[in-house]
């Protein structure tokens, strides 16, 4: 019997990010329009496993995802042990642009979820010419912390377990059990302090784009917004506010939560495919 490989290829990319040598883990599948996928805080590219196995997507799109430094199988930069990881909007934008350049992508579509959904708004505001289109999943211009993030990284609490515990309620109660627990497993495997470091960007003034979101010009780069109805972190109301101020089309995804592509890939595809069809026609 021949091996039952998935269409996904994983490789390591050597590049300079933020002026330092990095070793980045990159997955891709399919061919055609480059679709660069950005994972959520404290997680990795495995969240896009459903998309990268969907033949309906792969026939027209080259789906690419990379683990941010410190995440998944991407290493932190040398000397990490003497630093505290903290994601900033400036670094996040630069890393996406530098990774896209290093991959040789020509005006990719970028799609991000949660912190990725937020940075998509920053990209739409600062670098619309670099992208064919942008898709914000669980996009909100700002998100206020609703628990003390120091719980996420302290020696007397298992970091993986508390990170999974914190995000578990963001998954739709109707999500298939296997996909729910796969999603949580990614959080359980996250490195110490990484989720907390990502949330710096997400919940402080650094990543707050409320005052600028109205300046986004979707005629320069089409922006699409999709949010799961069970997401109480990036709420439907927050997405609709971005939609109102930008004119971007917005879709409420019924029966989905904060991790649509990972918690229920099939249901998510039913919402994403029409968007991809519109992008294909651009």
């Amino acid at each position, binding site marked *: 019997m021949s091996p039952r490989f998935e269409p996904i290829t994983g490789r390591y990319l050597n590049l300079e990010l933020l002026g330092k040598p990095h070793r980045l883990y990159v997955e891709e599948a399919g061919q055609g329009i480059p679709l660069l996928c950005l994972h959520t805080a404290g997680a990795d590219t495995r969240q896009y496993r459903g998309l990268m196995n969907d033949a309906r997507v792969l026939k027209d799109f080259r789906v690419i995802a990379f683990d941010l430094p410190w995440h998944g199988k991407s290493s932190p930069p040398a000397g990490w042990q003497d630093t505290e990881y903290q994601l900033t909007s400036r670094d996040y934008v630069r890393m996406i642009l530098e990774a896209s350049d290093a991959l040789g992508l020509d005006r990719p579509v970028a799609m991000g979820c949660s912190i990725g959904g937020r940075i998509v708004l920053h990209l739409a505001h600062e670098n619309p010419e670099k992208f064919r289109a942008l898709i914000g999943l669980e996009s909100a211009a700002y998100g206020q912390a*609703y628990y003390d993030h120091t*719980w996420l990284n302290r020696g007397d*609490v298992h970091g993986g*377990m508390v990170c999974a515990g914190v995000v*578990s309620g*963001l998954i739709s109660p109707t999500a298939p059990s296997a996909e729910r627990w796969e999603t949580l497993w990614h959080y359980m495997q996250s490195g110490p302090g990484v989720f907390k470091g990502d949330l710096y960007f997400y919940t402080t003034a650094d990543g707050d784009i409320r005052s600028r979101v109205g300046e986004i010009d979707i005629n320069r780069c089409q922006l699409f917004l999709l949010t799961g109805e069970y997401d*109480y972190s990036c709420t439907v109301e927050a997405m609709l506010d971005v939609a109102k101020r930008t004119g971007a089309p917005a879709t409420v995804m019924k029966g989905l939560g904060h991790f649509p592509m990972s918690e229920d890939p099939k249901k998510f595809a039913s919402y994403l495919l029409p968007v991809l069809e519109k992008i294909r026609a651009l």
Partner: protein
Amino acid sequence: MLDLIPKYVNADSNLVRRGHFVDTTFMIAIDDAYSLIRVEAGRVTKITSGPFVTPDYSFCLRASRAVWEKFWQPLPPLGFTDVFSLVKQKLMQVEGNLHPFMANLLYFKDVIAAPRKEAVR
């Protein structure tokens, strides 16, 4: 509904296993009705109803009866599916020494939601 917690927690060997290192007493407040839930090695061994003069517990989850009733529905309405959703909406307070709660968050979320199982039997 609180009497359903030991019934469903102790019958769930996986949940008991996941809480093997949990040894604490926590409080659930439903309006002004207070109850202490004793957990030993993952099993709920005792529930004591108030009022109390000097209750001794680690953490307390406090919400109105209307909120708890929605939370305990088999498929709760939007916004009522999770403790942190309620906390964010200021419909629930989590107070006290949060260490046992946060260090065993997935376990306690399932313990607290255990009464949902009654309605789906």
